[in-house]
């Protein structure tokens, strides 16, 4: 099952490449937003979400 917001998205493993600085910047921005929103680990199936949160509880969460 695809989990576009889960950390296992293979897109994240792709190096950022672009012919121009602008494209590189936009690619970096997109990746940043992907990570920022993906931090919430919104998956498509509840079991994965629950499992992920249970497993990562020791280090995950919001700060002050």
């Amino acid at each position, binding site marked *: 099952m*695809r989990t*576009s*917001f889960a*950390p*296992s998205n293979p*897109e*994240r*493993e*792709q*190096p*950022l490449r672009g012919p121009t600085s602008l494209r590189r910047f936009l*690619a*970096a*921005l997109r*990746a*940043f*937003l*992907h*990570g*920022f*929103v*993906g*931090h*919430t*680990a*919104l*998956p*498509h*199936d*509840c079991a994965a*979400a*629950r499992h*992920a*949160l*249970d*497993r*990562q*509880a*020791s*280090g*995950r*969460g*919001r*700060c*002050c």
Partner: protein
Amino acid sequence: MGALRGLLWVVVSILGAFSLGTIALARGEALSSAWFLVAAVCIYALGYRFYSRFLALRVFALDASRPTPAVRLADGKDFIPSNRWVVFGHHFAAIAGPGPLVGPILAAQFGYLPGTLYIVIGVVLGGAVQDFTILVGSLRRDGKSLGQMVRDEIGPIGGAAALVGVLAIMIILIGVLGLVVVNAMFGSPWATSTVGATIPIAILMGIYMTRIRPGRVLEATVLGLGLVVLALFGGRWIDENEALRVYFDLDKRTIALSIIAYGFIASVLPVWLLLAPRDYLSAFIKIGTVALLAAGLLIVHPPVQLPALTQFIDGSGPVFAGKLFPFCFITIACGAISGFHALISSGTTPKLLASEPDARMIGYGAMLMESFVAIMALLSAAVMEPGVYFAINSPASLIGTSVAEAATTISGWGFPLDAAALERLTSEIGEHSLLSRTGGAPSLAVGMAEIFSQALGGPAVKAIWYHFAIMFEALFILTTLDAGTRVGRFMVQDLLGQMYAPLGRTSNLFSNLLASALIVSGWGYFLYQGVVDPLGGINTLWPLFGIANQLLAATALALATTIVLKTARPIYALAPALPLAWLLSVTMTAGVQKIWDPDRRIGFLAQADHLAGQLASGLIAPDKLAETQIVIFNNRLDAAVTALFMVLVTVVVCDAARVWRRTLRG
């Protein structure tokens, strides 16, 4: 090319020094907020380019050829090598909470200068160093957590003290942040209804994505954001509807109990139903609003109205009592250095990094970005009229309950406040009163509404911007509260599991309910304590939160010093040791003063003794007897909690000092 680059850094240095000099030396003349932004950006750039590079190359010797835990232990679940920008976004989202928004606002009572200097210098030399060092330490130790590293590097006593400290600090944190939300929603049906509406909207999104249209994230996102905008405008309609507004015009105790119930439910319910979609929705609003504030400040760059220093540096401040040293630094906390970041730097982030040198950008860089958010929050307060700032942030016991009384008192402090202008502002933002809306959130919202409305829409839409800002802050805090409660629940279940194994299973319903009830009772107690506190709660609890947070940072820096001493040239250990020495002096001084200071606005025991004396002399009205006894108990409890934090950190640092001595002797 090299010479050109060198010249560029010389220009950045001169610009940064000139901007900082302008901020520091300006007295009495109009000062544009643009100077603050330029100074901050230049200092961050210099710190990142030179100091973090020194740390990366000399102190840590980061090596791209050394495989990270994400690469060596890749399992597609916990350990996943990821693009560095994705990890940066993930890390920033995890460390960015409401602390850097609220702390600088409260510390603005001392004037804009102390806060600005501490935020920009403290982050470069302290906060970012802590985050970076702990991240590298965890990277080199298979992604171990802070507690595990303290146990391994310092010893089991220090490890146990750190574990108890983290849990206790989390309880204080959530209670205090809950109080900020209570103060933001109290007396505001518009804010209460808008924030309340985000809960069913999140549940609807969760059901939509998992039951109605599984996997359609974009559709759910559009639906969720659309409904949030509707809730914002619907809040105004409710506020203007006499029949409906009474249901949302809640007193502080009811709001506090509602938040406690929400925390419990969010901890118990499946994460897909409430917590995950709510956090997802909040993420868009958070990043959008922070970007909007930066753009607004750049476009409008309003003049700063707060003086560089106020007379309240002597400790007589109305927002919270205590002198500039140590309370300014305790109050700012997260904008310059935050102990909680050490939990993230040793949590998921080291398990995602694909390359060791990326730790510099993520550990050091993300903290600089958080600090920039703190500077923007400080500016939101500094561009307001000082009289208005103090009217919002001072408790009713000091300024009275009417606008006329408040105007007289605050004008007497040397900050002219025009009663008619305050009433006009109150009306423009669609509120019924702005007096004594303590906690930092309402004043930040007023400042943001001023900046946003000047950039877009004018005074006619100020009310919409104000309530948008309140919703943004409440979402920021409630996502910390619900995720923190859940993480706290897991920690309690871990501890319970040590005593009786079935209680440690996260799938066990009874264990789930018991652990959730325990953690919610813990922070709920402090929240309720703040609500019934005669001084408004923030005065008492925010310094307690600051002390707790900074003591956790001291624990992290003690570990960082140990790691550097063991792995690099001893002289390099000064990089974490100097901020550690600063933090220990600040937090221990603040802790001692909060417990034993004879001024009852500062010292917990002095306040308890004063009230006990009044009680014994029969000076307390019969209907206030029970409440006074509770307040006396709460003050003594706060003194005991502060002492506990100080003892725990002393144990960790003494244990670490034993290791430093042994290491230095070879």
